[in-house]
């Protein structure tokens, strides 16, 4: 009894949360201004977009999939929308076109996964390559970076606005997290996603329309991606399509799995992603204040992830008898 209790007390989520608190405490004591409200807001704001992308990824990962096309989809759909606005299209129409593009691409990816039965890892990898290539060849030509047009109107407030002293990105991210939580917890499709992640065949036999559900997951992820991209673009005033070739997709996976969401599906939730995102936020903020080199930051980030998954596997060892085949 005591054993099982201690096991349950130390899952990966709690380990990561503990590390976050310890780091937070250490930084609070050691670093000047770390606890200043402005810094704390900046901390959360810096990871708001990452957290939103994490939510998009979460919805897919819970159903035992993975979406590696998130970053490419975000960059190209938002970049194209910005370019359309710069070209004279009304803002609302351009945003609708961009959103349509994001949803359409994730719809294609979802169909490939659900109906053509291509493994999600590979389908989204190829879709990412395709989206980037298509976007750079036909939509965003001649420039890597699409700058924010001046006449964006209210939409620009998404990234730059402040409500009651809190920057808009944080509010939007929080709203997304809340929506994701409610969706996963209290709606039928949300529960279905968990069921599919737990045991896909059982879910199918149980009468869930697993193929439409799979497509739906990826479309949801595409929509959240577009929103995240819009916030990125309006905050920094541009959309850099080169982020597709960066490590960003790995960072997204990092915040999802760091908090203890199982890549084999069915395990985890919004809380896990928030915990993972906070750890990354605290870490990056602290290291930036300490002026740690970017590559070293990467190493430290990775080591912490490694520590989290190693300790999880020691505390909750995976069993040869119950491990899922083909679970990489």
């Amino acid at each position, binding site marked *: 009894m005591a054993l099982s209790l201690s096991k349950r007390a130390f899952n990966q989520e709690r380990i990561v949360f503990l590390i976050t608190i310890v780091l937070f405490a250490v930084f609070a004591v050691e670093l000047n201004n770390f606890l200043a409200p402005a810094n704390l807001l900046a901390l959360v704001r810096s990871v708001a977009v990452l957290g939103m992308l994490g939510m998009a990824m979460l919805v897919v990962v819970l159903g035992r999939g993975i979406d590696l096309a998130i970053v490419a989809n975000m960059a190209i759909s938002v970049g194209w929308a910005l370019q359309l606005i710069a070209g004279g299209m009304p803002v609302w129409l351009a945003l609708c076109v961009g959103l349509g593009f994001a949803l359409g691409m994730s719809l294609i990816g979802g169909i*490939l996964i659900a109906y*053509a*039965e*291509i*493994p999600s*890892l*590979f*389908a989204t*990898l*190829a*879709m*990412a*390559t*395709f*989206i*980037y*290539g*298509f*976007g*750079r*060849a*036909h939509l965003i*030509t001649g420039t890597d970076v699409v700058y924010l047009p001046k006449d964006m109107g209210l939409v620009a407030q998404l990234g730059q606005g402040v409500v009651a002293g809190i920057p808009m990105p944080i509010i939007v991210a929080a709203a997304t997290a809340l929506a994701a939580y409610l969706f996963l917890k209290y709606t039928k499709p949300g529960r279905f996603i968990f069921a599919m992640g737990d045991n896909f065949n059982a879910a199918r036999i149980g009468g869930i329309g697993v193929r439409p559900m799979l497509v739906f997951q990826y479309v949801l992820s595409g929509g959240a991606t577009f929103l995240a991209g819009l916030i990125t673009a309006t905050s920094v005033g541009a959309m850099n399509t080169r982020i597709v*070739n960066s*490590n960003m997709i*790995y960072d997204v*996976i*990092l915040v999802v*799995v760091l908090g203890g969401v199982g*890549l084999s599906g069915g395990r985890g939730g919004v809380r896990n992603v928030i915990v993972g995102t906070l750890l990354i936020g605290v870490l990056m903020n602290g290291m930036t204040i300490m002026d740690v*080199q970017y*590559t*070293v930051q*990467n*190493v430290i*980030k*990775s*080591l912490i*992830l*490694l520590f989290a*998954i*190693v300790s999880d*596997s*020691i505390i909750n*060892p*995976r069993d*040869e*008898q119950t*491990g899922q*085949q*083909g*679970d*990489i």
Partner: protein
Amino acid sequence: MASSETPAREIPLRETLARLRYRYFPDHLVGELLSKKWIDNAVPFAVLLCVIATFGFLIPDFFAPKLLVITSRQLGEFGLVCIAMMTVIIVGGIDLSVGSNFALGNFTTLALLNLAGWPVAAVVPVVILVCGAVGFVNGVLVGFFRLRAFLTTLVTLIIVRAVVDMLLLRYAQEMSVSFYDSDIWDLVGMGGVAGVPSSFVVLIVVALIGHVILTRSRPGWRAMAIGGSRRSAHNMGLSVRGTVCGSYTISGMLCGLSGLLYAARLGGAGTDTGMGLEIAALTAAVLGGNSLGGGRGSVVKALIGSVIVLLMTNGVIRLGLNSGSGPMVLGLTLLFAVFVDVRWLKNRDKLLSKVYVSPTYVKLPQPASTDPDSGTPFALNNRLRNVEIIGLGEVESPEDVILDDEDYLFCGNRHGDVLRFFPPDYKTWEVYAHIGGSPLGMAFDRDRNLLVCVGGMGLYKIARDRTVSKVTDETNRSPFSVIDDSRLRLADDLDIAPDGRVFFSEATIRYEMHDWPVDALESRGNGRIICYDPRTGRTHTALRNLIFPNGICLANDGQSILFAESWACRISRYWIDGPKAGKVERLIEDLPGYPDNINRASDGTYWVALLGMRSPALDVALRMPGFRRRMARRIAPDQWLYPNLNTGCVVRFDDTGRVIESLWDLGGLNHPMITSMREHRGWLYLGGISNNRIGRVRLENADQNWSAATAYWGKA
């Protein structure tokens, strides 16, 4: 009436065409090709051909010799990374750190050569070890700690990349000003062997070694087993953790080697070295047909994939399209190729089960009549009505029965035992020996060892002290055979020549024992007669392409064997010695049923069991292969036309092929089915593969002291 309108000649003509078509077009090869594992490479290979054709057409000098040399040099490096990825994918993992590890290998090589000034011979092993160490770390984490491969190697990807970046920041300046000059190094980087670039030679060597290890050695088989089912591999006692760890280590070492070759070619290190290589290698590995999740993969698949990816990336660059088109084309091709591959994998077995059965044209001669009033020796009678029953309900499927000099009665059963009934009344019995499989035909050799043909296993010997030993279970593989016919699938009956050679039949090489009805449907010459020679210990195939060869009996002259071909309804003589050695001649061709075992009778004639009777419907169907194929594809097996096994008889014939008499049991009340019979001291003992009993019937006019074992080998 339609039949009266069509000319009478048309049917024979159509049949002639069918006969020729089925004789010369090897339908069965299609199914056999599909059943091979290497056929999986067909889809990737077709994609490769398409890529070559497309770019060869679009870019005129794409395959000019000079460019080919450059491409093959790149392929040397990229192929190694793809093989590295493949070794990990095969055990059910993934290695995302290959790109970073490649960059590390590149940097280490240049640093050791340019800065430390080491000789090439020392640098090579050190670089391989350094990168192997990174792989080893992956291996320990994934194999021993059971971490998830994707995350773990993602972490090492980031860490190693960061380490390389930091090292570059520190040493790039110094490295770029110094330059390593050595003949060996130039040979590796720019030269080659007989015009073939060095890196390509290295790739070929590694690929060959890798192929042999993976397909023909224990570590390779273990890796495949673990990828196929990690749990089963663990339960059967394989060291899952060690093997997984080893495969990651090998992956790391290959990346190091590849990075070294890259360093030799370009002599520079940058932050973008090996960037995105993990994606390209993963793409190549999957495109080639290696399954993510493990258990299915090969070096050839990795190589095919790597050639496709390399040609496509190079080709798209050479086409000079704008920056996005390359990735776009690449992404689309990938999606399409993987889509086809997934569909292929999913439907291959369905396709195989549809096309594997390939009936052929058989025209049986008009059967001898069995009408009671016909006056033929096959005329129905009721001489088996009063068969005595032995072991009712105690034996299951005694295909063959045999008796020794001391009157013990032996039979096999479907549990893999050989039973022995005690004389004189055969009321009690014991398990004489347990072999396994399905014991079928039996024979005593000179030393009174019992040789048994075991369906599914081969030829086995039960010595007089009841020890069971394998005599043979394989023969020479036929040249140009697609399926491997060296293993014995359905050894059926045997007899032993005076010089000790054992001749035994293998009914079919295309089906397992329980699928015999499918072989009947096919009626193709799938069977063979095999000879085992105890003097040399060798087994070789004596006769091929027989239609379900079944019973075998040494003729009284000792120079030939008689064999029955069940679905061809004929008995032939095969000369094993003397002037006609090697020749086959037909003895009886118009049997009204399907012959099974043949054994000697006391008066110099032979007994043969007919296990079932021909029926006009099936005889017609045998002349219509297309009809039988449609039947096999479209309706459930229990509704097929089958040989009629509900009735049968025992027939006696002599050396000239003249049929003397037949023994029937009308209604089959006492002894339903007959697959074999033995004459022994005035009794005829009957076995039947679907029976729960053995029968025996009195032979009034036979030699009351004759025993087969004595007749063959003299007094014991």
